[in-house]
Protein backbone atom coordinates (compact mmCIF):
# COMPACT_ATOMS: atom_id res chain seq x y z
CA UNK A 1 0.00 0.00 0.00
CA UNK A 2 1.14 3.50 -0.84
CA UNK A 3 1.94 5.59 2.23
CA UNK A 4 -0.91 7.52 3.79
CA UNK A 5 -0.48 9.78 6.80
CA UNK A 6 -2.68 11.31 9.43
CA UNK A 7 -1.56 14.92 9.43
CA UNK A 8 -4.04 16.43 11.85
CA UNK A 9 -6.50 15.51 14.58
CA UNK A 10 -9.24 17.49 16.28
CA UNK A 11 -11.35 16.51 19.24
CA UNK A 12 -13.75 18.33 21.46
CA UNK A 13 -14.08 17.22 25.06
CA UNK A 14 -16.65 14.43 25.33
CA UNK A 15 -19.57 15.52 27.49
CA UNK A 16 -22.84 14.16 28.76
CA UNK A 17 -24.61 17.05 27.12
CA UNK A 18 -23.50 19.82 24.76
CA UNK A 19 -26.47 22.06 25.26
CA UNK A 20 -24.39 24.93 23.94
CA UNK A 21 -23.67 23.24 20.58
CA UNK A 22 -25.77 21.88 17.78
CA UNK A 23 -24.24 19.35 15.35
CA UNK A 24 -22.78 22.07 13.16
CA UNK A 25 -21.27 23.91 16.15
CA UNK A 26 -19.57 20.71 17.30
CA UNK A 27 -18.27 20.00 13.79
CA UNK A 28 -17.06 23.56 13.33
CA UNK A 29 -15.02 23.49 16.51
CA UNK A 30 -13.61 20.05 15.76
CA UNK A 31 -12.75 20.73 12.12
CA UNK A 32 -10.96 23.93 13.06
CA UNK A 33 -9.06 22.11 15.78
CA UNK A 34 -7.92 19.51 13.24
CA UNK A 35 -6.91 22.16 10.71
CA UNK A 36 -4.98 24.05 13.39
CA UNK A 37 -3.33 20.84 14.53
CA UNK A 38 -2.21 20.13 10.98
CA UNK A 39 -1.20 23.75 10.50
CA UNK A 40 -3.23 24.05 7.32
CA UNK A 41 -6.36 25.85 6.14
CA UNK A 42 -9.56 24.38 4.72
CA UNK A 43 -8.21 25.29 1.26
CA UNK A 44 -5.55 22.61 1.67
CA UNK A 45 -8.24 19.96 2.09
CA UNK A 46 -9.49 18.64 -1.24
CA UNK A 47 -12.32 16.37 -0.15
CA UNK A 48 -14.44 15.66 2.91
CA UNK A 49 -16.05 12.57 4.43
CA UNK A 50 -18.51 13.15 7.24
CA UNK A 51 -19.68 10.24 9.35
CA UNK A 52 -23.07 10.28 11.00
CA UNK A 53 -26.19 8.23 11.56
CA UNK A 54 -29.74 9.30 10.79
CA UNK A 55 -31.16 7.43 13.77
CA UNK A 56 -28.86 8.94 16.36
CA UNK A 57 -29.37 12.38 14.84
CA UNK A 58 -33.14 12.09 14.49
CA UNK A 59 -32.71 13.41 11.03
CA UNK A 60 -32.85 11.97 7.54
CA UNK A 61 -29.71 12.89 5.56
CA UNK A 62 -27.87 13.62 8.80
CA UNK A 63 -24.76 14.70 6.88
CA UNK A 64 -26.65 17.80 5.74
CA UNK A 65 -26.49 19.25 9.25
CA UNK A 66 -22.69 19.44 9.23
CA UNK A 67 -21.94 20.20 5.57
CA UNK A 68 -21.32 23.92 5.96
CA UNK A 69 -19.37 23.43 9.18
CA UNK A 70 -17.16 20.80 7.57
CA UNK A 71 -16.24 22.97 4.63
CA UNK A 72 -17.89 20.87 1.91
CA UNK A 73 -19.36 23.76 -0.07
CA UNK A 74 -16.83 23.80 -2.89
CA UNK A 75 -15.45 20.30 -2.47
CA UNK A 76 -16.19 16.71 -3.35
CA UNK A 77 -17.65 14.99 -0.33
CA UNK A 78 -19.48 11.92 0.88
CA UNK A 79 -21.00 10.48 4.01
CA UNK A 80 -20.38 7.14 5.66
CA UNK A 81 -23.05 5.96 8.02
CA UNK A 82 -21.52 3.99 10.86
CA UNK A 83 -18.48 4.26 13.08
CA UNK A 84 -15.90 6.90 12.19
CA UNK A 85 -13.22 4.29 11.51
CA UNK A 86 -15.28 3.21 8.49
CA UNK A 87 -15.53 6.84 7.38
CA UNK A 88 -11.76 7.15 7.72
CA UNK A 89 -11.32 3.99 5.67
CA UNK A 90 -13.31 5.46 2.80
CA UNK A 91 -11.39 8.72 3.19
CA UNK A 92 -8.17 6.78 2.85
CA UNK A 93 -9.44 4.85 -0.19
CA UNK A 94 -10.24 8.15 -1.91
CA UNK A 95 -6.61 9.23 -1.54
CA UNK A 96 -5.24 5.84 -2.59
CA UNK A 97 -7.44 5.99 -5.71
CA UNK A 98 -5.34 8.89 -6.89
CA UNK A 99 -8.36 11.20 -7.00
CA UNK A 100 -7.45 13.25 -3.95
CA UNK A 101 -4.50 14.32 -1.85
CA UNK A 102 -6.04 15.24 1.50
CA UNK A 103 -9.25 14.01 3.10
CA UNK A 104 -10.93 15.59 6.09
CA UNK A 105 -12.91 12.94 7.99
CA UNK A 106 -15.35 13.89 10.72
CA UNK A 107 -17.74 11.99 12.96
CA UNK A 108 -20.34 13.36 15.34
CA UNK A 109 -23.00 12.11 17.75
CA UNK A 110 -25.19 13.70 20.37
CA UNK A 111 -26.42 10.82 22.44
CA UNK A 112 -27.99 13.39 24.75
CA UNK A 113 -30.59 14.31 22.16
CA UNK A 114 -32.24 10.91 21.85
CA UNK A 115 -33.03 7.78 23.83
CA UNK A 116 -30.19 5.32 23.21
CA UNK A 117 -32.29 2.31 24.08
CA UNK A 118 -34.83 3.12 21.35
CA UNK A 119 -32.16 4.01 18.80
CA UNK A 120 -30.36 0.70 19.28
CA UNK A 121 -33.65 -1.23 19.45
CA UNK A 122 -34.03 -0.12 15.81
CA UNK A 123 -30.93 -2.14 14.94
CA UNK A 124 -32.91 -5.32 15.65
CA UNK A 125 -34.92 -7.00 12.91
CA UNK A 126 -38.34 -5.36 12.64
CA UNK A 127 -40.18 -8.60 11.87
CA UNK A 128 -38.59 -11.15 14.16
CA UNK A 129 -37.04 -9.29 17.07
CA UNK A 130 -37.71 -5.64 17.61
CA UNK A 131 -41.08 -5.81 19.32
CA UNK A 132 -39.63 -8.00 22.04
CA UNK A 133 -37.75 -4.95 23.32
CA UNK A 134 -34.03 -5.72 23.02
CA UNK A 135 -31.45 -2.94 22.76
CA UNK A 136 -27.67 -2.56 22.71
CA UNK A 137 -27.30 -3.20 26.42
CA UNK A 138 -29.44 -6.34 26.57
CA UNK A 139 -27.91 -7.65 23.32
CA UNK A 140 -24.39 -7.13 24.61
CA UNK A 141 -25.31 -8.55 28.02
CA UNK A 142 -26.06 -11.84 26.28
CA UNK A 143 -22.67 -11.64 24.60
CA UNK A 144 -20.99 -10.85 27.93
CA UNK A 145 -22.49 -13.98 29.47
CA UNK A 146 -21.53 -16.16 26.50
CA UNK A 147 -17.95 -14.84 26.61
CA UNK A 148 -17.53 -15.01 30.38
CA UNK A 149 -18.98 -18.52 30.65
CA UNK A 150 -16.83 -19.77 27.79
CA UNK A 151 -13.65 -18.68 29.54
CA UNK A 152 -14.78 -18.96 33.15
CA UNK A 153 -14.43 -15.24 33.86
CA UNK A 154 -15.97 -13.46 36.84
CA UNK A 155 -17.56 -10.05 37.11
CA UNK A 156 -14.65 -9.01 39.35
CA UNK A 157 -12.30 -9.64 36.45
CA UNK A 158 -14.30 -7.67 33.90
CA UNK A 159 -14.89 -4.88 36.45
CA UNK A 160 -11.17 -4.26 36.48
CA UNK A 161 -11.42 -2.87 32.94
CA UNK A 162 -13.78 -0.19 34.19
CA UNK A 163 -11.51 0.64 37.13
CA UNK A 164 -8.48 0.97 34.85
CA UNK A 165 -10.19 3.03 32.15
CA UNK A 166 -11.98 5.49 34.43
CA UNK A 167 -8.64 5.93 36.22
CA UNK A 168 -6.80 6.57 32.93
CA UNK A 169 -9.42 9.17 32.05
CA UNK A 170 -8.19 11.36 34.90
CA UNK A 171 -5.28 12.31 32.67
CA UNK A 172 -7.35 12.95 29.55
CA UNK A 173 -8.80 16.45 29.16
CA UNK A 174 -11.26 15.13 26.54
CA UNK A 175 -12.77 12.40 28.75
CA UNK A 176 -16.27 12.67 30.16
CA UNK A 177 -15.96 10.40 33.22
CA UNK A 178 -12.60 10.47 34.96
CA UNK A 179 -13.15 8.53 38.17
CA UNK A 180 -11.31 6.88 41.01
CA UNK A 181 -13.27 3.70 41.51
CA UNK A 182 -12.62 0.21 42.83
CA UNK A 183 -13.76 -3.20 41.68
CA UNK A 184 -16.18 -3.18 44.59
CA UNK A 185 -17.66 0.09 43.37
CA UNK A 186 -18.33 -1.52 39.99
CA UNK A 187 -19.88 -4.57 41.62
CA UNK A 188 -22.02 -2.36 43.86
CA UNK A 189 -23.33 -0.28 40.96
CA UNK A 190 -26.86 -0.82 39.63
CA UNK A 191 -27.42 -4.07 37.74
CA UNK A 192 -28.89 -3.08 34.35
CA UNK A 193 -28.91 -6.32 32.36
CA UNK A 194 -26.97 -9.03 34.07
CA UNK A 195 -24.04 -9.49 34.03
CA UNK A 196 -23.70 -5.82 33.03
CA UNK A 197 -23.81 -3.26 35.81
CA UNK A 198 -23.93 0.48 35.37
CA UNK A 199 -20.16 0.85 35.71
CA UNK A 200 -19.62 -1.93 33.15
CA UNK A 201 -21.43 0.22 30.58
CA UNK A 202 -20.20 3.27 28.71
CA UNK A 203 -22.19 6.45 29.28
CA UNK A 204 -24.43 8.36 26.88
CA UNK A 205 -22.25 11.07 25.36
CA UNK A 206 -21.94 13.96 22.95
CA UNK A 207 -18.77 14.37 20.94
CA UNK A 208 -17.16 15.07 17.63
CA UNK A 209 -13.78 14.10 16.25
CA UNK A 210 -11.95 14.89 13.02
CA UNK A 211 -8.81 13.60 11.39
CA UNK A 212 -7.03 14.74 8.24
CA UNK A 213 -5.49 12.11 5.99
CA UNK A 214 -2.95 12.89 3.30
CA UNK A 215 -0.85 11.15 0.69
CA UNK A 216 2.89 11.00 1.25
CA UNK A 217 3.70 13.99 -0.91
CA UNK A 218 1.20 16.26 0.84
CA UNK A 219 2.09 14.87 4.26
CA UNK A 220 5.76 15.72 3.75
CA UNK A 221 4.93 19.17 2.50
CA UNK A 222 2.29 20.10 5.05
CA UNK A 223 3.12 18.27 8.23
CA UNK A 224 6.00 18.07 10.68
CA UNK A 225 4.78 15.02 12.59
CA UNK A 226 2.82 12.74 10.34
CA UNK A 227 1.55 9.47 11.75
CA UNK A 228 1.48 6.73 9.15
CA UNK A 229 -1.32 4.33 8.30
CA UNK A 230 0.28 0.92 8.17
CA UNK A 231 -2.87 -1.10 7.59
CA UNK A 232 -6.65 -0.92 7.81
CA UNK A 233 -9.41 -3.45 7.18
CA UNK A 234 -12.99 -4.21 8.09
CA UNK A 235 -15.23 -7.29 8.13
CA UNK A 236 -18.80 -8.10 9.12
CA UNK A 237 -20.13 -11.22 10.84
CA UNK A 238 -23.66 -12.63 10.38
CA UNK A 239 -26.57 -10.43 11.43
CA UNK A 240 -28.80 -12.42 13.74
CA UNK A 241 -27.19 -12.82 17.16
CA UNK A 242 -28.35 -16.43 17.11
CA UNK A 243 -26.43 -17.07 13.87
CA UNK A 244 -23.17 -16.16 15.59
CA UNK A 245 -21.06 -17.66 18.33
CA UNK A 246 -21.26 -14.52 20.41
CA UNK A 247 -18.15 -15.51 22.38
CA UNK A 248 -16.03 -15.70 19.22
CA UNK A 249 -15.34 -12.34 17.54
CA UNK A 250 -14.42 -13.96 14.22
CA UNK A 251 -15.09 -10.86 12.10
CA UNK A 252 -12.64 -8.91 14.28
CA UNK A 253 -10.10 -11.71 13.93
CA UNK A 254 -10.50 -11.56 10.14
CA UNK A 255 -10.21 -7.76 9.97
CA UNK A 256 -7.17 -7.73 12.25
CA UNK A 257 -5.47 -10.41 10.20
CA UNK A 258 -5.84 -8.36 7.05
CA UNK A 259 -4.73 -5.11 8.67
CA UNK A 260 -1.69 -6.82 10.19
CA UNK A 261 -0.76 -8.37 6.85
CA UNK A 262 -0.80 -4.90 5.29
CA UNK A 263 1.29 -3.56 8.17
CA UNK A 264 3.78 -6.41 8.15
CA UNK A 265 2.84 -7.40 11.68
CA UNK A 266 3.46 -11.08 12.21
CA UNK A 267 3.29 -11.19 16.00
CA UNK A 268 0.79 -8.69 17.40
CA UNK A 269 1.60 -9.79 20.95
CA UNK A 270 5.08 -8.27 20.51
CA UNK A 271 4.90 -5.71 17.73
CA UNK A 272 2.14 -3.48 19.06
CA UNK A 273 2.96 -0.81 21.65
CA UNK A 274 -0.44 0.64 22.39
CA UNK A 275 -4.10 -0.16 21.69
CA UNK A 276 -7.29 1.89 21.74
CA UNK A 277 -10.16 -0.58 21.52
CA UNK A 278 -13.94 -0.28 21.48
CA UNK A 279 -14.76 -0.79 25.16
CA UNK A 280 -18.47 0.08 25.01
CA UNK A 281 -18.75 -2.44 27.85
CA UNK A 282 -16.04 -3.64 30.21
CA UNK A 283 -16.03 -7.24 28.91
CA UNK A 284 -15.63 -5.96 25.35
CA UNK A 285 -12.14 -4.60 25.97
CA UNK A 286 -11.00 -8.09 26.93
CA UNK A 287 -12.84 -9.83 24.14
CA UNK A 288 -11.61 -7.42 21.47
CA UNK A 289 -8.00 -7.66 22.68
CA UNK A 290 -8.23 -11.39 22.10
CA UNK A 291 -9.88 -10.89 18.72
CA UNK A 292 -7.10 -8.48 17.80
CA UNK A 293 -4.58 -11.22 18.54
CA UNK A 294 -2.96 -9.19 21.29
CA UNK A 295 -3.39 -12.24 23.49
CA UNK A 296 -4.85 -15.75 23.27
CA UNK A 297 -8.63 -16.25 23.61
CA UNK A 298 -9.55 -16.21 27.30
CA UNK A 299 -6.23 -14.76 28.45
CA UNK A 300 -6.92 -11.02 28.45
CA UNK A 301 -8.44 -10.96 31.95
CA UNK A 302 -5.41 -12.50 33.61
CA UNK A 303 -3.01 -10.25 31.70
CA UNK A 304 -5.09 -7.28 32.82
CA UNK A 305 -4.81 -8.47 36.42
CA UNK A 306 -1.05 -8.74 35.95
CA UNK A 307 -1.01 -5.10 34.89
CA UNK A 308 0.01 -5.65 31.28
CA UNK A 309 -2.65 -3.27 29.94
CA UNK A 310 -2.11 -0.49 32.48
CA UNK A 311 -0.59 2.82 31.44
CA UNK A 312 2.81 1.67 32.70
CA UNK A 313 2.27 -1.91 31.55
CA UNK A 314 3.63 -3.88 28.63
CA UNK A 315 0.92 -2.79 26.23
CA UNK A 316 -1.25 0.06 27.51
CA UNK A 317 -4.87 -0.38 26.42
CA UNK A 318 -7.24 2.59 26.34
CA UNK A 319 -4.74 4.81 28.07
CA UNK A 320 -7.14 7.59 27.09
CA UNK A 321 -9.84 6.17 29.34
CA UNK A 322 -11.61 4.54 26.43
CA UNK A 323 -15.31 4.58 25.74
CA UNK A 324 -16.20 3.68 29.29
CA UNK A 325 -15.09 7.23 30.04
CA UNK A 326 -17.08 8.77 27.17
CA UNK A 327 -18.89 7.16 24.23
CA UNK A 328 -20.07 9.47 21.43
CA UNK A 329 -21.17 6.53 19.30
CA UNK A 330 -20.41 7.42 15.68
CA UNK A 331 -17.32 9.47 16.56
CA UNK A 332 -16.05 6.79 18.95
CA UNK A 333 -13.66 5.01 16.58
CA UNK A 334 -12.25 8.31 15.32
CA UNK A 335 -11.46 9.28 18.91
CA UNK A 336 -9.62 5.93 19.19
CA UNK A 337 -7.55 6.82 16.10
CA UNK A 338 -6.90 10.34 17.37
CA UNK A 339 -5.78 9.03 20.77
CA UNK A 340 -3.35 6.65 19.04
CA UNK A 341 -2.02 9.60 17.04
CA UNK A 342 -1.36 11.51 20.28
CA UNK A 343 0.60 8.53 21.62
CA UNK A 344 2.62 8.03 18.45
CA UNK A 345 3.55 11.70 18.36
CA UNK A 346 4.60 11.50 22.01
CA UNK A 347 1.93 14.02 23.03
CA UNK A 348 -0.13 11.91 25.43
CA UNK A 349 1.22 13.59 28.56
CA UNK A 350 0.83 11.61 31.78
CA UNK A 351 -0.36 8.48 29.95
CA UNK A 352 2.36 8.57 27.30
CA UNK A 353 3.89 5.19 26.50
CA UNK A 354 7.59 5.83 26.07
CA UNK A 355 8.80 5.22 22.55
CA UNK A 356 5.41 4.09 21.23
CA UNK A 357 5.96 3.20 17.58
CA UNK A 358 2.99 1.06 16.61
CA UNK A 359 -0.62 1.43 17.67
CA UNK A 360 -3.89 -0.35 16.98
CA UNK A 361 -7.26 1.42 16.90
CA UNK A 362 -10.62 -0.28 16.53
CA UNK A 363 -14.14 0.76 15.62
CA UNK A 364 -17.31 -1.26 15.19
CA UNK A 365 -20.86 -1.26 13.89
CA UNK A 366 -23.93 -3.21 14.89
CA UNK A 367 -25.04 -5.09 17.96
CA UNK A 368 -22.44 -7.03 19.98
CA UNK A 369 -19.62 -6.17 17.58
CA UNK A 370 -20.98 -7.53 14.31
CA UNK A 371 -18.73 -5.49 12.02
CA UNK A 372 -15.24 -4.36 12.98
CA UNK A 373 -12.74 -1.94 11.49
CA UNK A 374 -9.09 -2.25 12.55
CA UNK A 375 -6.38 0.35 12.01
CA UNK A 376 -2.65 -0.10 12.50
CA UNK A 377 -0.79 3.19 12.84
CA UNK A 378 2.93 3.84 13.00
CA UNK A 379 5.20 6.66 14.10
CA UNK A 380 7.56 5.74 11.26
CA UNK A 381 6.81 5.34 7.62
Amino acid at each position, binding site marked *: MENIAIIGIGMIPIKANY*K*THNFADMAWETVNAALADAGISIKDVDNVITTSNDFWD*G*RTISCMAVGDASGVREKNCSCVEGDGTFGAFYGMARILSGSYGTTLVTGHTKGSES*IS*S*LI*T*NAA*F*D*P*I*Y*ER*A*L*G*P*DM*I*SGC*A*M*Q*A*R*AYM*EKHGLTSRQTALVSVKNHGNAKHNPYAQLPMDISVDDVLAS*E*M*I*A*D*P*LRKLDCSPVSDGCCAIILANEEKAKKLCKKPVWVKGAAFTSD*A*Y*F*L*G*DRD*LADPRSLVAAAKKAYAMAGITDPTKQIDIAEVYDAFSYQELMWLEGLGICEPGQAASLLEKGDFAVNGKLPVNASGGLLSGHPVIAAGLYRIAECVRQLRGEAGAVQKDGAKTAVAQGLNGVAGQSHCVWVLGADK
Partner: protein
Amino acid sequence: MEQDLSKVTPLVYESRIGVPYNWWAGKTASRFFETIAHDKKLAATKCDKCGKVFVPPRKTCPECFVDTNSWVSLSGEGTVVTFTVVTRKLAALGKRNPPVIFALIRPDGADTAMLHILDNIAPEKVHTGLAVKPVFSENPKGHITDISHFEPV
Protein backbone atom coordinates in the same frame (compact mmCIF):
# COMPACT_ATOMS: atom_id res chain seq x y z
CA MET B 1 -26.49 44.81 19.22
CA GLU B 2 -24.68 42.88 21.93
CA GLN B 3 -21.81 40.96 20.32
CA ASP B 4 -21.02 38.61 23.17
CA LEU B 5 -22.88 35.28 23.46
CA SER B 6 -21.74 34.44 26.96
CA LYS B 7 -25.01 35.51 28.58
CA VAL B 8 -27.26 33.67 26.12
CA THR B 9 -29.11 30.69 27.57
CA PRO B 10 -29.06 27.82 25.09
CA LEU B 11 -32.57 26.57 24.35
CA VAL B 12 -33.49 22.93 23.96
CA TYR B 13 -36.02 22.34 21.22
CA GLU B 14 -38.15 19.39 22.21
CA SER B 15 -39.48 17.34 19.35
CA ARG B 16 -39.82 13.83 18.08
CA ILE B 17 -39.75 12.25 14.70
CA GLY B 18 -42.65 9.94 14.10
CA VAL B 19 -42.70 7.99 10.88
CA PRO B 20 -45.24 5.19 10.57
CA TYR B 21 -43.97 1.95 9.06
CA ASN B 22 -45.58 -1.06 7.38
CA TRP B 23 -42.91 -3.69 7.27
CA TRP B 24 -43.64 -6.25 4.59
CA ALA B 25 -42.69 -9.51 6.22
CA GLY B 26 -42.25 -11.25 2.88
CA LYS B 27 -43.45 -14.75 2.09
CA THR B 28 -40.74 -16.51 4.08
CA ALA B 29 -41.52 -14.79 7.37
CA SER B 30 -45.23 -14.96 6.61
CA ARG B 31 -44.92 -18.75 6.42
CA PHE B 32 -43.28 -18.68 9.87
CA PHE B 33 -46.21 -16.80 11.39
CA GLU B 34 -48.84 -18.83 9.50
CA THR B 35 -47.30 -22.02 10.82
CA ILE B 36 -47.46 -20.73 14.38
CA ALA B 37 -51.11 -19.79 13.91
CA HIS B 38 -52.17 -23.07 12.27
CA ASP B 39 -49.86 -25.73 13.68
CA LYS B 40 -48.25 -24.21 16.78
CA LYS B 41 -44.88 -25.16 15.32
CA LEU B 42 -41.80 -23.21 14.25
CA ALA B 43 -41.18 -23.27 10.51
CA ALA B 44 -37.49 -23.26 9.66
CA THR B 45 -35.69 -23.13 6.32
CA LYS B 46 -32.93 -25.53 5.41
CA CYS B 47 -30.01 -24.80 3.10
CA ASP B 48 -29.74 -27.61 0.57
CA LYS B 49 -26.06 -26.88 0.12
CA CYS B 50 -24.66 -26.85 3.67
CA GLY B 51 -27.62 -28.48 5.39
CA LYS B 52 -27.98 -25.75 8.02
CA VAL B 53 -31.45 -25.19 9.45
CA PHE B 54 -32.33 -21.55 10.12
CA VAL B 55 -34.63 -20.09 12.73
CA PRO B 56 -35.84 -17.42 12.13
CA PRO B 57 -36.31 -18.84 8.61
CA ARG B 58 -34.18 -17.23 5.94
CA LYS B 59 -34.96 -17.09 2.25
CA THR B 60 -31.24 -17.38 1.52
CA CYS B 61 -28.40 -19.08 3.34
CA PRO B 62 -26.11 -16.23 4.41
CA GLU B 63 -23.04 -18.45 4.23
CA CYS B 64 -23.63 -20.32 0.95
CA PHE B 65 -25.58 -17.42 -0.59
CA VAL B 66 -28.10 -19.68 -2.28
CA ASP B 67 -31.87 -19.86 -1.87
CA THR B 68 -32.98 -22.14 0.94
CA ASN B 69 -35.60 -24.23 -0.80
CA SER B 70 -36.54 -26.68 1.94
CA TRP B 71 -38.79 -26.20 4.94
CA VAL B 72 -38.59 -28.03 8.24
CA SER B 73 -41.16 -28.01 11.03
CA LEU B 74 -39.81 -27.78 14.58
CA SER B 75 -41.63 -28.10 17.89
CA GLY B 76 -39.75 -25.12 19.25
CA GLU B 77 -38.41 -27.01 22.24
CA GLY B 78 -34.79 -26.15 22.64
CA THR B 79 -32.02 -24.90 24.85
CA VAL B 80 -30.90 -21.55 26.15
CA VAL B 81 -27.61 -20.56 24.47
CA THR B 82 -27.18 -17.35 26.44
CA PHE B 83 -29.45 -14.90 28.25
CA THR B 84 -29.67 -11.72 30.27
CA VAL B 85 -32.03 -10.55 32.96
CA VAL B 86 -32.83 -6.90 32.35
CA THR B 87 -33.48 -5.21 35.65
CA ARG B 88 -33.57 -1.57 34.60
CA LYS B 89 -36.61 -0.20 32.82
CA LEU B 90 -34.83 0.30 29.51
CA ALA B 91 -36.93 2.34 27.07
CA ALA B 92 -36.91 -0.40 24.44
CA LEU B 93 -38.82 -2.69 26.81
CA GLY B 94 -41.92 -0.62 26.11
CA LYS B 95 -44.82 -1.99 28.13
CA ARG B 96 -42.83 -4.82 29.67
CA ASN B 97 -41.70 -4.29 33.22
CA PRO B 98 -38.40 -5.58 34.53
CA PRO B 99 -37.20 -8.09 35.28
CA VAL B 100 -37.34 -9.20 31.65
CA ILE B 101 -35.29 -12.23 30.61
CA PHE B 102 -33.99 -12.12 27.04
CA ALA B 103 -32.50 -15.34 25.73
CA LEU B 104 -31.06 -16.79 22.58
CA ILE B 105 -32.80 -20.13 22.25
CA ARG B 106 -31.64 -22.86 19.89
CA PRO B 107 -34.67 -24.96 18.93
CA ASP B 108 -33.95 -28.67 18.66
CA GLY B 109 -33.21 -29.42 15.03
CA ALA B 110 -32.00 -25.89 14.21
CA ASP B 111 -28.44 -24.68 13.68
CA THR B 112 -29.15 -21.13 14.78
CA ALA B 113 -30.72 -19.58 17.84
CA MET B 114 -33.55 -17.09 17.98
CA LEU B 115 -34.06 -14.17 20.31
CA HIS B 116 -37.06 -14.35 22.61
CA ILE B 117 -38.24 -13.85 26.15
CA LEU B 118 -38.21 -16.39 29.00
CA ASP B 119 -41.01 -16.40 31.54
CA ASN B 120 -42.52 -18.59 34.25
CA ILE B 121 -39.13 -19.06 35.83
CA ALA B 122 -37.34 -17.18 38.59
CA PRO B 123 -34.50 -15.14 37.05
CA GLU B 124 -31.92 -16.75 39.35
CA LYS B 125 -32.97 -20.22 38.11
CA VAL B 126 -32.12 -19.49 34.47
CA HIS B 127 -28.90 -20.95 33.14
CA THR B 128 -27.36 -21.66 29.77
CA GLY B 129 -28.32 -25.09 28.57
CA LEU B 130 -31.76 -24.82 30.18
CA ALA B 131 -34.38 -26.80 28.25
CA VAL B 132 -37.28 -24.57 27.23
CA LYS B 133 -40.40 -24.72 25.10
CA PRO B 134 -42.47 -22.04 23.39
CA VAL B 135 -45.81 -20.93 24.75
CA PHE B 136 -47.98 -19.72 21.91
CA SER B 137 -50.38 -16.83 22.16
CA GLU B 138 -54.09 -17.61 22.13
CA ASN B 139 -54.79 -14.97 19.52
CA PRO B 140 -52.08 -15.05 16.86
CA LYS B 141 -51.77 -11.79 14.95
CA GLY B 142 -48.87 -12.50 12.62
CA HIS B 143 -46.39 -10.99 15.04
CA ILE B 144 -43.33 -12.23 16.90
CA THR B 145 -45.40 -12.13 20.10
CA ASP B 146 -47.52 -14.95 18.64
CA ILE B 147 -44.91 -16.84 20.63
CA SER B 148 -45.89 -15.37 23.95
CA HIS B 149 -42.63 -16.49 25.56
CA PHE B 150 -40.51 -19.55 26.24
CA GLU B 151 -40.61 -21.39 29.56
CA PRO B 152 -38.86 -24.38 31.11
CA VAL B 153 -39.89 -27.75 29.69
